[in-house]
């Protein structure tokens, strides 16, 4: 097991979050484009919670507050020819790939211009090689099938699959890993280990570690504890290339934190725990470390998103013809 820059995850659960004051590592300065993307995801998610609060959204949605940096770091490493399988907490994954907040918001609100005409909603999105669906674990075998196709095409493309720590409860994950390893398929498993599944802490749902679960199938595993986009990107780039060249699977485990609720208003973690987690949030830390750039872009992105919300909200309802 390789560890990128930072502490090791404890078996099963995560270590208790470090209090804000500690702010262990300074986040490096990001290119404007990266910071903009990070902020776009952040303000997209905040807008959703706000819309829910104002009774303008129905159904449910899962925001990725606190985890935005994962897809942003991966963005240049995963190309257009690659497939991405996302999950219920997928807005960041989508925005990092398509930079299309209006299309996604329209999907969530069921308005004209919705990526999937409002049929799929927040967690069922298909666009080019990007797919999400709402049943945990179900897409891992599917990704293996896509990887089999890609391997045969022989152009070094891969199938990346995002899953959470809780999703390792599903048997489908293991059936898929076994075949990916047996058949040497270019599957890149991206684990967002945020220490919780809905309301259940990882130590109450996972025995052993994700590293050992990869090892069980002879699959390489890489632990990422950094929240720094530049650091993560630099360290993962050669690993992802290796997946392309060898056509073999890799599990990357991101130790991360869910800053917001599971969906909306359903966070049962203690105020202290939440405060500690907020102290680790890249958003606050980056604001402190790089105030000038942050304030300039944060304001701009807020305004952009506010415009998107206004514009999409004013659209007529989506239409669905191809049932």
């Amino acid at each position: 097991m390789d560890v990128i820059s930072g502490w090791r995850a404890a078996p099963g659960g995560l270590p208790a979050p470090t209090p804000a004051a500690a702010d262990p590592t300074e986040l490096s300065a990001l290119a404007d484009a990266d910071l903009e993307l990070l902020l776009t995801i952040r303000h997209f998610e905040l807008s959703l919670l706000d819309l829910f609060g104002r009774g303008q959204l129905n159904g449910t949605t899962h925001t990725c507050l606190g985890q935005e940096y994962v897809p942003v770091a991966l963005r240049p490493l995963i190309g257009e020819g690659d497939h991405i399988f996302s999950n219920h907490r997928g807005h960041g994954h989508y925005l990092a790939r398509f930079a299309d907040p209006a299309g996604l918001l329209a999907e969530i609100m069921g308005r004209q211009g919705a990526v999937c005409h409002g049929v799929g909603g927040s967690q069922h999105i298909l666009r080019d090689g990007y797919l999400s669906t709402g049943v945990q674990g179900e897409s891992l075998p599917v990704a293996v099938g896509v990887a089999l196709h890609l391997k045969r095409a022989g152009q070094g493309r891969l199938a990346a699959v995002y899953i959470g720590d809780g999703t390792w409860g599903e048997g489908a994950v293991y059936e898929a890993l076994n075949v990916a390893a047996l058949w040497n398929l270019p599957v890149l498993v991206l684990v967002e280990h945020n220490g919780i599944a809905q309301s259940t802490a990882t130590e109450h749902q996972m025995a052993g570690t994700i590293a050992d679960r990869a090892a069980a199938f002879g699959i390489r595993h890489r632990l990422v504890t950094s929240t720094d986009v530049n650091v993560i990107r630099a360290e993962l780039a050669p690993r992802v290339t290796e997946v392309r060249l060898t056509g073999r699977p890799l599990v990357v485990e991101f130790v991360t934190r869910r800053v917001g609720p599971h969906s909306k208003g359903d966070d049962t973690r203690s105020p202290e725990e939440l405060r500690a987690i907020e102290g680790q949030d890249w958003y606050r830390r980056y604001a402190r470390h790089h105030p000038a750039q942050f304030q300039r872009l944060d304001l701009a992105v807020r305004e952009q998103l506010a415009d998107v919300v206004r514009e999409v909200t004013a659209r007529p309802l989506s239409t669905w013809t191809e049932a």
Partner: protein
Amino acid sequence: MRVVENLNQALRGLLDEDPSLFLLGEDIVDPYGGAFKATRGASTRHPDRVLATPISEGGITGIAAGLALAGDRAIVEIMFGDFLALCFDQIVNFASKSVTMYGRRVPMRLVVRCPVGGNRGYGPTHSQSPQKHFVGVPNLALFEMTPFHDNTATFSRMLDRGEPCIHFEDKILYTQRMYRGGRVDGLLRYDFVGADGGTARVRVEDPDEAEQVVIVPGGLANPVLAAVRSLFLAEERSCLVYVPSQLYPFDLDPLLPSLRRAGRVVIVEEGTAGGTWGADVAQLIHQKLWRDLRRPVRLVHSAPSVVPTAPHLERGVLVQESTIYQALRETEDA
């Protein structure tokens, strides 16, 4: 009292009374108390028997079957009925089969309960009505929550059967109120018929006057009642409504006299078209009442489609009160 509170009381009461009863499911322990809060408070009183599990629907159903096999009783909460798909093998090939495939009766006291249905904007994988897929499994009984049936009685009945049961719970119904004392409102009265009072009978006036009979599981009982009420107020046409607690095996006998009298039957359900529960009940009725029916049993169900997320699209697919009203209004016989 809201239906989910009645359910919650039932679960807690049963746990209090029976030290061999377990409750398993994802995120069911306090303070969260389950995605729909049905289990709130249960784990605090019985931390050793109310267990939050990993996300392993198939596995936990198997674990519950193991408890049942060992002589305990178990209730499993599957967070969304859609995920019964992941328990299909454990329910159909293990728990149900074990009751008879070993040549003698093996009691399996196991209930799998799950929220079902749409109109909540949860999207195609969180809005289904999977009842139909489980109809006709030997030794598997299907129940559905209703606003008439006290859940304590229903769960006792299910656990006492000695056969696995699935309890389907409409998500919208959770937040609606339980009916009590024989009255739905100023217009509609109800009582119970059948063994164990298994089926609620709701009517405007004298049941013998009803020009048609509606059979509807609990999930759509309220939209049916609303449609029946409107039809009566608008045209003074009277329907008799049956709301069974047990969907399968379905006990038609207590309903026969009134079906025969009316000669017109409508079955309403939320499941999408094709191979529905209603088609199976219709088959029973056609066999038994062929000469008495004025027309074939009419089925009202959702379109043959995935359940879309956006509310305006979802309404277009799922049975609505207006769909039911239209179906009840159509008078002409075949």
